[in-house]
């Protein structure tokens, strides 16, 4: 498994897997599409054949009915009871003769009258018709049959109906001695007699050849398949190219960075690039754990400063308590140290640089003052107090405390927004509150500045930070909207006033977090505990749609101040 730097080609396991699975899916899809096309064409052909055969059978039945009810009685009336003129009085003779004429102009439609014991030997049933006669005889309720039958290598769609003897038929098909002499002269006295009324006389069938139509349908499906395969291969090539550009090359660049740092691990590891990345991140986590442990045991000296116990930890940097060593009176400071391993990643490096730039250029009482920078170490003024997460863990806060915290937080957020900065990651763990009621923000690693390109957006990364405090649009990956910070202040305001979080903190997917936030409404017990004005402020700040929220943090602050001035008066 070899990786090359961004912009160059790389042959990798992940790419091969993607290619294999994409090929299987696309070719399988093409095959399925062709089969579905064939099945549908065949279904339509069968439906058409069914309609046509039914029309012809109905027509034959109409002819037979006319002979029985109109022609034959009229002939008896004209020529006497004993007369029998076969050309005008036999239903079978007339219907088969008419259909013979019909088949001269439509040779593909074959009409048959078949019987086991017919007067006319030409109407004798073949083996298939014998089987069908048995089938109809088994159950007289069976009145119709349709299906595809192969005869002499040709497929036919056949429709069949049974025909039963009635009383008037007994003159010609009952006893031989009752039969007209002209009938015996024509067909003899051996076949076609000794039936009773109600017996199965025979079957009338229409056969339509369908082989050529099925062949055409199959050829059409084959053509479709042959078109789909090259189109799929072209699509596959484009997808592969896209995958190479968007995923493989970037992943390769990241992995090559990690490999450079871990030169000792030259042996090939099993698995694809994602497995390698996971292994690298595992090792990074182990390193961070070791670093934290080491830092708590003894001070680390950095030029004129010494780092002591950690205050808070982030993904790319840690903040430590520290002090100066160059002056006689030790002066407390805080020291932000970027992790060398994490900062090898260009994305983390860009985030870290943005954060340092903000600490250096933003001036606000709630931000620790920037003092010095030594490589990836930043010296800030000392940070006192405890994190808001400790404070919020003790239950609902008193109004003066809420006022003090949120007045400062809103002022700080307004200052950031006014200078084009959106924090994106306000949470209790990075906000410290000291004895003098001073709030301090410790981390700005995920902040964006509207005058600089945003590294997280440029890298196409998804949401970064804690989903609990994150605005719904941030969960969807949007950044740079100051109203996202207003949402977060709404979450913190709820937490400060109720002592609990507005959302369930169970681990869940991004979609479930977004759904939970979209459905959030203030609970009944909170309505009783909070003032209507505070409920109004929290509900507005926690609106799912950014345009329904406070548009400016200053407006939220003004509304909060109105409540507090009313309470204090």
């Amino acid at each position, binding site marked *: 498994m070899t990786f090359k730097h961004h912009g160059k080609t790389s042959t990798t396991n992940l790419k091969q897997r993607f290619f294999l699975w994409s090929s299987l899916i696309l070719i399988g899809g093409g095959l399925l599409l062709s089969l579905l096309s064939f099945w549908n064409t065949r279904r339509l052909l069968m439906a058409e054949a069914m309609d046509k055969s039914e029309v012809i059978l109905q027509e034959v039945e109409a002819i037979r009915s006319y002979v029985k009810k109109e022609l034959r009685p009229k002939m008896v009336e004209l020529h006497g009871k004993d007369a029998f003129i076969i050309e005008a009085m036999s239903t079978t003779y007339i219907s088969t003769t008419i259909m013979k004429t019909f088949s001269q102009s439509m040779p593909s439609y074959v009409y048959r009258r078949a019987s086991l014991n017919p007067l006319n030997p030409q109407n004798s049933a073949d083996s298939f018709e014998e089987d069908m006669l048995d089938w109809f005889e088994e159950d007289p309720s069976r009145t119709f049959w349709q299906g595809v039958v192969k005869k002499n290598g040709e497929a036919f769609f056949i429709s069949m109906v049974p025909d039963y003897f009635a009383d008037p038929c007994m003159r010609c098909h009952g006893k031989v001695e009752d039969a007209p002499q002209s009938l015996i002269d024509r067909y003899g006295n051996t076949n076609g007699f000794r039936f009773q009324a109600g017996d199965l006389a025979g079957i009338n069938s229409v056969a339509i050849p369908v082989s050529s139509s099925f062949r055409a349908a199959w050829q059409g499906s084959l053509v479709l398949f042959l078109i789909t395969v090259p189109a799929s291969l072209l699509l596959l090539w484009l997808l592969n190219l896209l995958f190479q550009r968007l995923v493989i090359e970037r992943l390769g660049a990241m992995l090559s960075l990690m490999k450079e740092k871990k030169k000792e691990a030259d042996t090939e590891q099993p698995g694809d690039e994602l497995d390698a990345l996971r292994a690298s991140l595992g090792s990074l986590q182990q390193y961070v754990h070791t670093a934290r442990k080491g830092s708590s045991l003894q001070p680390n000296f950095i030029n004129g400063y010494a780092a002591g116990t950690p205050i808070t930890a982030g993904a790319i940097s840690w903040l430590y308590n520290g002090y100066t060593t160059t002056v006689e009176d030790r002066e407390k400071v805080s020291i932000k140290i970027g992790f060398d391993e994490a900062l090898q990643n260009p994305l983390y490096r860009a985030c870290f640089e943005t954060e340092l730039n903000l600490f250096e250029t933003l001036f606000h009482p709630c931000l620790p003052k920037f003092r010095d920078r030594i490589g990836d170490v930043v010296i800030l003024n000392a940070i006192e107090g405890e994190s808001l997460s400790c404070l919020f863990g003790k239950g609902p806060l008193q109004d003066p405390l809420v006022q003090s915290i949120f007045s400062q937080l809103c002022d700080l957020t*307004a*200052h950031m927004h*006014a*200078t*084009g900065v959106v924090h994106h990651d306000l949470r209790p763990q990075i906000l410290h509150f000291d004895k003098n009621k001073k709030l301090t923000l410790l981390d700005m690693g995920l902040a964006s500045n509207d*005058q600089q390109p945003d590294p997280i957006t440029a890298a196409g990364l998804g949401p970064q930070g804690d989903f609990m405090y994150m605005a719904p649009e941030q969960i969807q990956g949007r950044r740079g909207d100051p109203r996202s910070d207003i949402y977060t202040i709404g979450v913190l305001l709820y937490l400060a006033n109720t002592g609990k979080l507005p959302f369930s903190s169970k681990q869940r997917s991004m979609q479930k977090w977004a759904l939970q936030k979209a459905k959030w409404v203030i609970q009944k017990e909170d309505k009783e505990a909070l003032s209507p004005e505070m409920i109004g402020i929290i509900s507005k700040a926690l609106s799912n749609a950014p345009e329904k929220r406070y*548009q*400016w943090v*200053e*407006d939220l602050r003004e509304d909060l101040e109105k409540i507090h001035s009313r309470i204090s008066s």
Partner: protein
Amino acid sequence: MRLMIFSDIHGNLAALQSVLKDAAKRNVHRNICLGDLVGYGPYPNECINLVRNLKNCRCLAGNHDVATLWETSPYGMSKAAKEAILWTMDQLSSGNKAYLHSLPDRLDLEEMTFVHANPYNPKGWRYVMDRKYALRSFAATSSRFIFIGHSHRPLVISKKHWLTVSIEPITGNKEYEINDSRRRIINCGSIGQPRDNDPRACYLIYDTRKQTITFHRIEYNVQKTVEAIQHLNLPPVLGRRIFKGT
């Protein structure tokens, strides 16, 4: 949220101080300066320092600001303006030069666009005072409001239909209601060198909750600035202009 918008200070420290004193009484939350901190006037460094230290303030670059950095040539300006720019170049501290260099030429904030001259070619410095350039400005952005300076004349241009606008020069102190859906170009006038025959410094406050824009005219010690201009041997015409407001 109340947003203070001002422009074209042109080194007139007395005017800027009087405006900031007035705005401090009006509980403003944010400030936006639309450029031209320097040029014409005798106190370029002092004015830049005041604006730089103003809380929650963002500033854009104006044509005089970039001319002092030689990003555009001052020789295309009027004789008095050119002389003042060349003098300002020598006065500016390196820190303030770096600050002017860092200023952007356009800012978009929610439904607002801010530029010094016009949004379709911010560094072309074309005045937007008639229908043609107003329509071109509206077409250059989808923002509801376009705040500009540069002409030194307070003005509101409202878009009526596709090709028609109404142009309304603003005189004196005036509260302007904007609670309809019309798009507007709003010129905030000038602090340091008004040219609408009113020598008082001009700025405006946009109240996003009340949906009003209030133009304020502030009197200041003009004589003090004129004396400084004379003392520094800057072209005397600059003093006469701020006296008359032309």
